[in-house]
């Protein structure tokens, strides 16, 4: 069971197995449930305590912000939107990969998603939590944050539904809600597994309450699977709409550098790009820490690297086309904004962005690099740095030199800006550590369905999908039905 076999090769006769290590149903349950049940590993504290400290810093920075106001940040007159919006867009983007894995890959029947979808969905929820903090706190007068919602009030005033900012409130909060429901529905059968294995009364009750008395009835599975399919179908347009709406916060402004029609697809591609990088970072750590190398295999990592390469190229294309359109438009303000972006005071940030986001993934053209754990880890960190800088560049480099040169200024982040950025990572990693410790990290019930023995018609079809080396491969009895279809 410990030996890992290479499942990144695609043999001509069939497909490589998704799960290696010779798991059956029971050993798979064991592999996923044991990390939840055994004593907390030392390595977990190594991640949890620093995260908790960072979360504490988040609390302090928010407390000081409420006391003192937004003056503690480096905002100035042309740059009225700083780290708060940068962090917001960054975190919403991180969440998108989770929904892509759980919903879009589900609709495309990409079965390899089953090993990573649980963790990726959890990541989505925690990322949306981090994102939602910033619009809540950045207004300065937090006690009027409820103005963002259409609530009857004593002033008889209502939000302006023609503004993308209010669309954003709806898009992101509904995205968070739907992601949470999707994740919880997926968790129910696995919570029942933990419930049935639990030895202590407290665990039985705690997991039992959330397992809702699930007993695997096929009459239940029928509705369950239909609900899951429909949630996937709903989450897919939702996730595309969320970052499109976020991009409209910028695109509907008349500011050069923001006022572009390419923003919605460009933001969505970037969001998936950064999100996959974050999934990669988390999975590389988790699979080692919880000994799941045979469930989250090299094939999974390689597939993620391919998606990062694809979305990285899309982001690179968007950077190029922005420059091209700025020149082609003949609009001097537009041309200045982009020349200033690449060569002005924030050129350092622009080139960090380009090198991290466009150059880093290019090494994934080589199979060797897609299978190189060290490079996968380094590149996932570099891409996330690059994607944070992308939002920083869009926000500050467009704002700091607006139409009137008399207004020009340079935005310099303060200690408290960085404290809120680092603190939001603290919130994210604290939540993720708790998730990885107390909930099943892998969607066991779903992974079981991709094991060959889960197929009730095993060995009956004309062409069998048999794991390499199992020795039970029957010869095709007739021409494969879909052979010529491609």
């Amino acid at each position, binding site marked *: 069971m410990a030996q890992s076999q290479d499942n990144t090769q695609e043999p001509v006769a069939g497909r490589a197995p998704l799960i290696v290590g010779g798991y*059956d*149903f*029971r050993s798979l*349950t064991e592999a996923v449930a044991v990390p939840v049940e055994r004593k907390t590993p030392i390595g977990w504290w190594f991640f949890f305590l620093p995260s908790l400290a960072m979360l504490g810093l988040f609390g302090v920075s928010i407390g000081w912000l409420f006391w003192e106001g937004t003056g503690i940040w480096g905002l100035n007159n042309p740059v009225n939107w700083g780290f708060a919006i940068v962090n917001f867009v960054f975190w919403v983007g991180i969440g998108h990969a989770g929904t892509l894995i759980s919903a879009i890959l589900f609709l495309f029947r990409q079965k390899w998603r089953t090993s990573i979808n649980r963790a990726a969905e959890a990541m989505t929820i925690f990322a949306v939590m981090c994102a939602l903090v910033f619009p809540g706190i950045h207004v300065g007068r937090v006690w009027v944050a409820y103005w963002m919602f*259409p609530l009857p009030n004593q002033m*008889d*005033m*209502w939000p*302006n*539904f*023609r503004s993308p900012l*209010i*669309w954003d409130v*709806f*898009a992101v909060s*509904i995205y968070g*809600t*739907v992601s949470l429901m*999707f994740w919880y*529905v997926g968790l129910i*059968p696995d919570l*029942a597994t933990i*419930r*049935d*294995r639990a030895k202590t*009364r407290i665990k*039985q009750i705690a997991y*039992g309450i959330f397992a*809702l*008395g*699930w*007993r*695997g*009835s*096929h*009459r*239940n*599975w*029928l*509705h*369950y*699977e*239909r*609900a899951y399919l*429909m*949630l996937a179908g*709903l*989450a897919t347009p*939702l996730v595309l*709409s969320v970052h499109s*709406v976020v991009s409209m916060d910028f695109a509907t402004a008349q500011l050069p550098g923001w006022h572009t029609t390419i923003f919605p697809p460009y933001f969505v591609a970037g969001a998936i790009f950064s999100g996959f990088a974050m999934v990669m970072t988390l999975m590389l750590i988790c699979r080692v820490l919880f000994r799941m190398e045979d469930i989250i295999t090299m094939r999974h990592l390689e597939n993620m690297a391919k998606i990062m390469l694809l979305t990285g190229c899309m982001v690179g294309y968007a950077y190029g086309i922005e420059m091209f359109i700025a020149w082609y438009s003949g609009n001097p303000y537009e041309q200045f904004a982009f020349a200033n972006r690449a060569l002005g005071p924030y050129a350092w940030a622009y080139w960090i962005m380009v090198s991290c986001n466009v150059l880093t993934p290019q090494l994934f053209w080589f199979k060797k690099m897609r299978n190189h754990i060290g490079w996968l880890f380094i590149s996932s960190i570099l891409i996330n740095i690059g994607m944070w800088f992308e939002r920083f560049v869009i926000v500050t480099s467009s704002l700091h030199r607006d139409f009137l040169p008399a207004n020009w200024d340079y935005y310099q982040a303060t200690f408290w800006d960085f404290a809120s950025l680092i603190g939001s990572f603290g919130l994210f990693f604290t939540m993720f550590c708790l998730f990885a410790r107390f909930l099943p990290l892998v969607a066991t*019930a*779903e992974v*079981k*369905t991709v094991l060959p*023995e*889960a*197929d*009730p018609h*095993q060995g009956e079809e004309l062409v069998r999908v048999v794991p390499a080396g199992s020795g039970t491969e029957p010869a095709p009895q007739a021409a494969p039905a879909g052979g010529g279809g491609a």
Partner: protein
Amino acid sequence: MGLMTLDVPEASAGYSHYGVLARFETAKALYRACEAVRDAGYSKWDALTPFPVHGLEKAMGLKPSKLPFLVLATGLTGAGLGFALQSWVHILGYPLVISGKPLFTWPAFVPVTFELGVLGAALGAVLGMFAFNKLPTYHHPLFRSKNFARVTDDGLFIAIEAWDPKYDDRDTAEFLSGLGAVEVEHVPIDDPTEDGEAGGAG
């Protein structure tokens, strides 16, 4: 109603057993057995598995889920309410002319209408699934069986309920053994006078 067989109906009064629980070794054996149970004419029975065995509803003769109709209805309700809210706010609640645009600017209402439609549909899918499946149901006679804990691990079961018209204590058990069940047992029905030791958490 197929749904009702999930519950312990009032008819269970007077029965000494919930029914027969049989465990099968492979998904293939379970699938064949389900076809046989269906063809034998049983109606109050269920297959219980740790993961959805694909296509088993065919072997069991179950009708497709009606959940999509509910989801369509709640989705349209969400979208409709969203559109109505925005129209009311801008036409009646707080009519404010912004850059000379008309009060009823429906294209600007599309994003929020869409989002609320998705919210309504998603709530319909999840809450509807709970309602159809009668979740949460923390207490069920099957949890009495020690063997049954394997249903969330590797156990593939068929349970035939005692109040099925074709049920017979001995014949049904023998029928299931004949289909290749590796373990067959009679599950006792809950005794209301007893301390509730079983249940969802047990």
